[in-house]
């Protein structure tokens, strides 16, 4: 792990709707070296998903800066943010978010579909990544014919296909059973061991064992970092029951 790969400074995000403003992030500061497997925990509404969306270039912050590999994301002109997402990021969602009418192979090839590469090279690269996640034999299956764990692995393969230096994962094991969750975490750890920086939002404290660092958000800020948090710091309980 070296350098400051992710540098977040004075990050604020205020959502306005139905006549009232809700501050999701309030001056969040975070610095992440390259190669880190960072866990992000906190109660619902603490700002985890908003942080991930802003870090992924999907949601403009109200204030503050976000730099990835020295690139000021929200200083990028026009559609360069989309290019950044394509070249620098791999997204893994809790709900897999595979495209229902595309096969596993086609889903993995999706990020390559807007790149200038030969059809053969795209296919070879996608098969290679599917092989890494152990699903090459399921390449021609539609998502509806796959289990939740398999779909999650396809989603991870899709995130990897562009060889991004950063993977953002939003509760990737949230809908999986214990054994499948362990498989997915092992796979992500394996990728991290290869040098990929991973920022993962989770509610599951058992996943801490895979993280280099675990930050806990509260009220839109980094409250503390495990294991240094005070006893009783809410990690995952919902804010409202």
């Amino acid at each position: 792990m070296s350098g400051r790969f992710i540098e977040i400074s004075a990050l604020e995000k205020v959502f306005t709707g139905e006549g009232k403003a809700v501050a999701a992030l309030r001056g969040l500061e975070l610095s992440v070296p390259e190669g880190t497997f960072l866990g992000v925990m906190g109660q619902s509404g603490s700002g985890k998903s908003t942080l991930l969306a802003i870090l992924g270039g999907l949601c403009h912050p109200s204030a503050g800066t976000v730099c990835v590999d020295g690139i000021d994301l929200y200083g990028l002109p026009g559609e360069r943010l989309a290019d950044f997402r394509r070249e620098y990021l791999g997204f893994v969602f809790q709900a897999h978010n595979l495209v229902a009418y595309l096969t596993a192979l086609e889903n993995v090839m999706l990020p390559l579909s807007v790149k200038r590469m030969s059809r053969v090279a795209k296919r070879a690269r996608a098969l290679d990544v599917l092989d890494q996640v152990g699903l090459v034999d399921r390449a021609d299956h539609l998502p509806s014919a796959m289990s939740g764990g398999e779909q999650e692995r396809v989603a991870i393969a899709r995130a990897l296909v562009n060889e991004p230096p950063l993977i953002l994962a939003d509760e990737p094991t949230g809908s999986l059973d214990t054994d499948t969750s362990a498989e997915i975490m092992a796979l992500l750890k394996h990728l991290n061991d290869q040098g990929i920086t991973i920022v993962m939002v989770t509610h599951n404290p058992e996943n801490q064992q895979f993280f280099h660092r675990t930050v806990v958000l509260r009220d839109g800020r980094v409250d503390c970092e495990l294991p240094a948090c005070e006893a009783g710091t809410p990690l995952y309980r919902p804010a409202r029951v």
Partner: protein
Amino acid sequence: MNLGSIALSNLRRRKTRAAFLIAGLLIGIATVVALLTLTSSLTVEAQNNMENYGANILITPQSNAMTLTYGGVTVGNVAVGARELNQADLGKILTIANRKNIAIVAPKLLGAATVKGKTMLLMGVRPDAEFKIKRWWVLDGRPMANDAELVAGSAAARELGLQMGDYVRVGGKRFTVTGLLHETGSQDDNLLLTTLAAAQSLLHKPGRVSMVEVAAQCSNCPIEKIVAQISGVLPGTKVTAMQQVVQSRMHALGQFRSFSLAAAGVVLGIEALVVFLTMMGSVNERTREIGVFRAIGFRRGHVVGLILIEAAVASVLAGLLGYLAGMGTTYVVLPFVAEGSAHVAWAPLLAPGAVLIAVAIGAAASLYPALHASRMDPTEALRAL
């Protein structure tokens, strides 16, 4: 894999929605193709059967006469040098450059004849040509087949008390009444029709005719051109174009064409609305998918391109199928709307035209949904799960 293959996969694997989109376009294109082809076929039919609508050229002897007529009442006639035409010269009509456009030549000799002590209007004609050029005549019986047979107009028959099969003497010669014309409301009601030869004999004008009516298929050639050509081969005659016959028919067809174009416009407008609603529905249904596309690095232009490619592929299919369906509909419908034996007019440019119109409508109606999709906030789209 590229945007095109994603679009094809979507259409292929979401068959119901694709079928609905294609059907929406197809019905509109088929309707437009059928309307345009029907109009075109009816126009061609009209051009090919101009004789159905009567004569459109009148040849009379050149004279310095001035007929003083108003409201059907002739109050005087000052004729200087009036004379009949020479029947032998009529063959020259079929030597003009546009002779292929001449459908019927119907010469006639008019004169007064005494029948049962009354002076009647006698007209000698070529039965085949005359009854063809006067398609609106309704005849009880049959036309005269020889020089001893006669057909009477309704008023003349009433005046003379003629019945079918009666014998009647005209100018001292006996004729058999073989046909009675139904009332036409025109001067034809007063006529006694015989063959041209019989009339020439009765009126003592062998080889002479009073006037000639000509039916020319003139839609593709200026009638004035044919008039000039006939005038050239028949010096000393007055050749007049009866423009109103052609013009009224063409006006009717023009109105039908205008109606067809207006109907086509309405259909295409409805079709565009169907495509718009279908595509908007599709975009809203695919909110999550579009959010994923944006999250993995698709530019807005890529999303717009994807939606438009889908619309274009569906439109090309709809255009081709719509063209075939429209032509098929024309084949079925044409016999019911055309009075004569009309043939479907194939327009080679209509097929690519149908595809182009379908693609243009598909793309135009999908543009806003595509832009709407590209402007979706990816986080909102992904949150909508």
